[in-house]
């Protein structure tokens, strides 16, 4: 069960620039840790609750992909989540050092929703919630960086 992160002092977009980082071992049980970390920051920077939920989904998808990439490549490294705030937005980056992949932007539309492609549906979901998201990867390359931003209220 998730702790109530609303207890965190929320509500000031103080116009600052801040950096946060979470490293965790590439194990499925830590996806929820990453969600809690990401959601807490989103609330702390006064994101509307619906966007906080969107952040949780995107982080969950990205971290799940990262963990699978590490498992496939057999790398012992942690997965990293970087969060950067500026006065207008909160930017999340999920970085892994696993096997890269071919990212076909055209595959983002779901023709038959019941035809869930392993790993692909996660990116479709991220794209629906954060249309400006970016992925840097490539087959055989060293790892993947997935980045998305949420606008902060004025």
């Amino acid at each position, binding site marked *: *069960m*998730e702790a109530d992160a609303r207890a965190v002092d929320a509500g000031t977009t103080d116009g600052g620039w801040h950096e946060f980082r979470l490293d965790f071992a590439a194990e*499925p*049980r830590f*996806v*929820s840790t990453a*969600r809690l970390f990401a959601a807490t920051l989103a609330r702390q920077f006064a994101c509307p609750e*619906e966007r906080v*939920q969107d952040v*949780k*989904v995107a982080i*969950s*998808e990205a971290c*799940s992909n990262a*963990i*699978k990439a590490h498992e496939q490549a057999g790398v012992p490294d942690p997965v990293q989540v970087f969060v950067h705030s500026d006065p207008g937005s909160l930017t999340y980056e999920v970085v892994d050092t696993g096997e890269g992949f071919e990212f076909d932007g055209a595959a983002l539309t*779901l023709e038959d*929703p*019941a035809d*869930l492609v*392993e790993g692909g*549906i*996660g990116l*479709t*979901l991220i794209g*629906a*919630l954060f249309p400006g998201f970016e992925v840097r990867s490539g087959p055989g390359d060293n790892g993947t960086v997935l980045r998305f931003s949420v606008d902060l209220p004025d």
Partner: protein
Amino acid sequence: MNVSGEVDLHTAPMLRERIHELTEQGTDRIVLDLTELSFMDSTGLGVLVAGLKRIKSRDGELILAGMQDPVKKILQVTGLDKVFDMRPSVAEVTGGG
């Protein structure tokens, strides 16, 4: 069947097992009570889709009841809300209350 908490990469396998058990038992209608499900991502969606296909192949039905808004949104965004039978509550399904 009650599904509570969060369904993701870590917890989805347990849900998959439970749904598999129910379909193996030959149940012709599975009702998933999702009122206490606070979060689900695509891993969970995959489990639900697989469960739906399996039960449909036995002429059964899978009903999702009492979905919270964040979970509903994920189904809407992926178009899966048109694929699943979704009800506001378990009471609507059983006709009780």
